[in-house]
């Protein structure tokens, strides 16, 4: 179970980890994009951190929606609309829950994936964040279905996300600026998949701590 305190801790830690990995994300983006993924994400999540203070007593929907709008209005680039849409979609399925359980997370994964697919007109195998998020979702869901608890399912999701990020090194980019490189994008790790991995890993680390 994830209660409000843990949830806010997760968001806060996601923001910290994104900011901490700013240079790494920029460097990955330098190889196949225009080297600003880290700067943009760090700018957005710094703003999110400022907003968190005021959200302590809000419901999940309000928190997630505020994060979404903050990212949409501060990140820019492709990551702003994509992560913004993801958080906005997530806000729509949690209602006014007191705590979030594994089934809520499955629902969140599903609407997040749908939202990103629609906004980015992309799918698994295009060398995007979806190559990290979709395997994580599948691993999480099958863990839960086979009776594993939230902690174990989150670990499995993180493991699949790690493999997903590795997989992006082997494929050609079909979306975003990296797609302009064609075959030359092969061999490089996708920065968007990497930032998604940071988010999924943070969730796993905190629920397992």
């Amino acid at each position, binding site marked *: 179970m994830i209660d409000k305190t843990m949830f806010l801790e997760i968001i806060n830690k996601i923001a910290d980890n994104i900011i901490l990995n700013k240079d790494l994300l920029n460097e990955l983006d330098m190889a196949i994009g225009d*080297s*600003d993924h880290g700067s943009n994400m760090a700018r957005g999540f710094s703003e999110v951190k400022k907003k968190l203070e005021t959200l302590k007593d809000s419901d999940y929907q309000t928190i997630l929606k505020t994060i979404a709008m903050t990212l949409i209005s501060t*990140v820019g*680039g492709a990551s702003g609309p994509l992560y913004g849409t993801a958080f906005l979609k997530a806000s729509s399925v949690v209602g006014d829950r007191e705590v979030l359980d594994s089934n809520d997370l499955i629902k969140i994964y599903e609407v997040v994936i749908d939202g990103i697919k629609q906004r*980015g007109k992309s799918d698994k195998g295009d060398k995007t964040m979806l190559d990290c998020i979709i395997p994580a979702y599948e691993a999480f869901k099958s863990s839960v279905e086979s009776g594993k608890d939230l902690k174990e399912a989150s670990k499995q999701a993180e493991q699949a996300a790690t493999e997903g990020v590795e997989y992006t090194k082997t494929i050609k980019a079909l*979306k*975003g600026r990296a797609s*302009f490189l064609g075959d030359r994008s092969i061999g490089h790790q996708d920065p968007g998949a990497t930032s998604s991995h940071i988010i999924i890993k943070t969730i796993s680390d905190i629920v397992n701590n």
Partner: protein
Amino acid sequence: MKKIINSTEEIVNEMLDGIVKAHPEHVKRVEGTSVLKRVNSPIQGKVALISGGGSGHEPSHAGFVGKGMLDAAVAGEVFTSPTPDQVFEAIKAVGSDAGVLLVIKNYSGDVMNFEMAAEMAEMEDIKVEKVIVNDDVAVENSTYTTGRRGVAGTIFVHKIAGAAAEEGRSLEEVQKIAQKVVDNTRTMGMSLGACTVPAVGKPSFTLAEDEIEMGLGIHGEPGTHKEKISSADELTEYMLGKIIQDMPIEKGEEVGVIVNGLGATPLMELYIVNRKLHSLLEEKEIKINKTLIGNYMTSLEMPGFSISVIKLDEELKGLLNAKADTPAFKEI
């Protein structure tokens, strides 16, 4: 990194203030936003043209705000598309009863943010259409990729669709003409070296002393390949060849060309390129109706250039040569 700046956070804000102070007769700032709008806008009965994108491409896009071109330009962070709320502010600031046309360069970020803004506008019953510019022949165009990038050929869209809007044509007609420009425009670029995005602090790529990057994008993203540097004439011939290979131009047809500097290439070198470009086209008996030369769509301090060619018919010719008065483009 050596840059004449105060802080990386304030670059766009301070630049916009500087532009307004330089050109108060043309542009003013929409308070609290990164939008520059035409001083007398909104103009009722006239379709409003809005473009924008990451900063660092100056004079694009703010330099083309004014009579006969854009009604507003939205500035994002350096090389980062502006956010939807900023684009929406522009739509609200200049949108008239005749509607709004968004001119978007084909980058996923630009497309997504402008589309989200269009969705917001639709919710408020503002008529918005869009055109996506994808003139760069350096990158593969396939249904499986994001498609081609929008680069310096965008200036032809601003000019020609801007003139059509100024004539009072309908939103549908202005969009149609903008699409016609896109369909008939091709660009190819190259660079001699990298640029440094201030927030990153390091050059975007490295090239050996005698190496060039062929077909690179306006954000310093890699091109098609690296090669040894050759003469201005050889480069020009190769690049025009790529354009014509993609969009055949028949003997007797007329074109407009842009020899665009990427920020650090002197006009001297652009004129040398232009000399060869003209002689190559003349050999093929292709008439040049208009030559634009200089910095139109730059990439910070990148040394290099691009060649854009637009195939013209009578309608496009008339609009290309129609009057315009903006900070970076004047047609008297």
